[in-house]
C-alpha cells in the first residue's frame, strides 16, 4: 500500500536545494478521529506478514494464507524458500489467528524462522525479517526477539529501513526483564501484555521503551490441528496491535509509520483527550470476539 510521497523521488536528500516546497507535495489523509481510526477498517488490502514458527494451513481461525515461506540456513548461507510445511509448534498459528480476528480482511503471509535447526537461529531470524521488509509488507508481526547483542546493530538498521519504507514492524517485548531486540528500538511498535479482562483493550505505556500493552493473559488462540488453546505472554498481545495497525491502514492507506503510531497512541484507552471525555474506552470495540 506504500505510495510515493514526493514528486521528486531522488533517493537521498540531506537538504532541500534547488527545489521549493511546491516541488515536494505530499498526498496525505486528514488525521482521523482516534477512535474512528481503529474502528473504520477491516484490514482489507493490507499485507501482513507473521515472522514466527509458520502458520497452519486451513485453520478455521486463521483462514486464507496468501504466502508461506521458510528461512533455510545451510553451507550456502541463509535464503528464503516457499514452503507448505505449516507450523512446527503452534505459536505462529496463534499469532496469525489473532491478527485475523482483529483485521478479518487483511492479507496474511507467513515466514517461518523457527523449527528448522538450532545453530544460527539469530541469522535465520534476521534473514526472515529482512526478507519481509524487502517484500514491502505493510505490517510485520514479530512475536520474537533476540538477546544476542551482536545482532543489535544490524537489526536497528533493518528496523530503520522498514520505518522509512513504510513497513511497520510490530515487535514483542521479551516476557522477562532482559535486554533483547528489536522491540527496544523507537522505529518499531513495541508491545507487552496487560492483565485486564477486556479483550479489545489497548493501552499506551507512559514509560517506554515498551510502548503499548494489549491482551496477553489467558488468551484463547488458534493452535495445531484446527483447534484452540489458551495461553499467556507478550507474544499474543503483539498480533492484537498488528491487527489494529492493519485496520487503521486499510482505512487510511497513506498513513506513515509515525502517523500510525500516533493513531495507536491517541486511541489507547488510557490516553485522555480533552474533547473525548474521561471514561475508559475500548478502542477496538468493533473487533469480533
Amino acid at each position: 500500500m506504500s505510495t510515493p510521497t514526493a514528486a521528486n523521488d531522488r533517493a537521498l536528500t540531506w537538504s532541500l536545494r534547488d527545489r521549493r516546497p511546491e516541488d515536494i507535495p505530499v498526498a496525505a489523509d486528514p488525521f482521523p478521529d482516534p477512535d474512528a481510526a481503529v474502528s473504520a477498517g477491516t484490514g482489507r488490502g493490507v499485507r501482513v506478514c507473521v515472522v514466527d514458527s509458520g502458520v497452519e494451513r486451513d485453520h478455521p481461525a486463521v483462514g486464507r494464507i496468501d504466502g508461506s515461506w521458510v528461512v533455510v540456513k545451510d553451507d550456502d548461507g541463509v535464503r528464503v524458500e516457499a514452503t507448505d510445511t505449516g507450523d512446527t509448534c503452534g505459536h505462529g498459528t496463534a499469532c496469525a489467528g489473532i491478527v485475523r480476528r482483529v483485521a478479518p480482511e487483511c492479507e496474511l503471509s507467513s515466514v517461518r524462522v523457527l523449527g528448522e535447526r538450532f545453530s544460527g537461529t539469530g541469522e535465520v531470524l534476521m534473514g526472515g525479517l529482512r526478507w519481509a521488509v524487502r517484500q514491502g509488507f505493510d505490517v510485520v508481526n514479530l512475536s520474537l526477539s533476540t538477546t544476542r547483542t551482536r545482532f543489535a546493530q544490524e537489526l536497528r538498521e533493518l528496523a530503520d529501513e522498514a520505518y522509512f519504507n513504510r513497513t511497520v514492524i510490530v515487535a514483542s517485548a521479551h516476557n522477562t526483564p532482559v535486554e533483547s531486540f528489536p522491540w527496544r528500538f523507537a522505529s518499531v511498535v513495541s508491545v507487552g501484555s496487560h492483565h485486564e479482562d477486556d479483550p479489545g483493550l489497548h493501552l499506551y505505556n507512559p514509560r517506554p521503551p515498551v510502548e503499548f500493552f494489549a491482551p496477553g493473559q489467558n488468551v484463547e488462540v488458534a493452535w495445531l490441528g484446527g483447534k484452540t488453546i489458551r495461553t499467556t505472554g507478550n507474544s499474543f498481545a503483539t498480533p492484537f496491535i498488528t491487527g489494529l495497525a492493519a485496520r487503521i491502514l486499510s482505512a487510511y492507506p497513506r498513513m506513515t509509520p509515525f502517523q500510525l503510531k500516533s493513531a495507536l497512541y491517541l486511541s489507547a484507552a488510557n490516553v485522555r483527550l480533552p474533547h473525548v471525555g474521561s471514561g475508559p474506552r475500548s478502542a477496538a470495540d468493533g473487533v469480533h470476539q
Partner: protein
Amino acid sequence: MSVENRSVTDPSGPPDDPSARELLQSVVEVARAIFGAQASSVFLLDEEAGELVFQAVSGRGEEFLVGRRFPADRGIAGWVAASAEPMIVDDLAANASFDRSLAQSTAYVPDAIMAAPLMDDDRVLGVLEVLDPAPQSRSSLSDLDLLFLFARQASIALRIVTRQRTGPAAGPGLAPERRTEAAELVRRLERLLVDAPHA
C-alpha cells in the same frame, strides 16, 4: 516423535556425579512444589543432535524418563528452546490438536504446560517444564514472572552440571564441595517455599 534412551556416558545424558544429580533433582522438586504441579522436568538441549534430553524429573515419569531424548524442533519445549522465551499453555487435554506423541510416550498427557528457557548468558542450555500446575497457578502474567525467576536458579544448576562435564575449558564450574553447598541451598529454598503459606 520418537523418544529414546542413550548411554549414561553420553555427554548430554543425565549427570553421573551424585551431587549434580541431586542438584537438578532438587530444582525440579522445588519447581513442582512452587506451582503445585503434577510433574516438573529439566531438559538439556543437545544442539548437535537437535534433541532435548531429560536430565531430571519430579512426579509423573520420574522412574523412567531421565536420559530420554526427543526432537527439539517442535512442540512447546522446542519453541521455548528456540525462542528463549517462557510460555504458558492451557486446555491441551481438551484438544485433539495437541501433539500428543511425546506426551503419550511418557505415559502422561498434561492439560497445562509452563515452560521456561534455561540460559547461560545469551545461550539456551535447556528448558524447565512444569506440567499441570495447580489451577490457581495457571495462566497469569505473575506466574510467568515467578517461572522466570525460578528458571534463573535452575539455569545456574544446569550450568554447573554442564560445565562440570565439559571440563575446565568450558568454564570453571564448581568444586565438589561447592556443588554440595549449592544442593543444600536449593534444599533450604525448597523447605522455605513448601512451608510458606500460598498467596
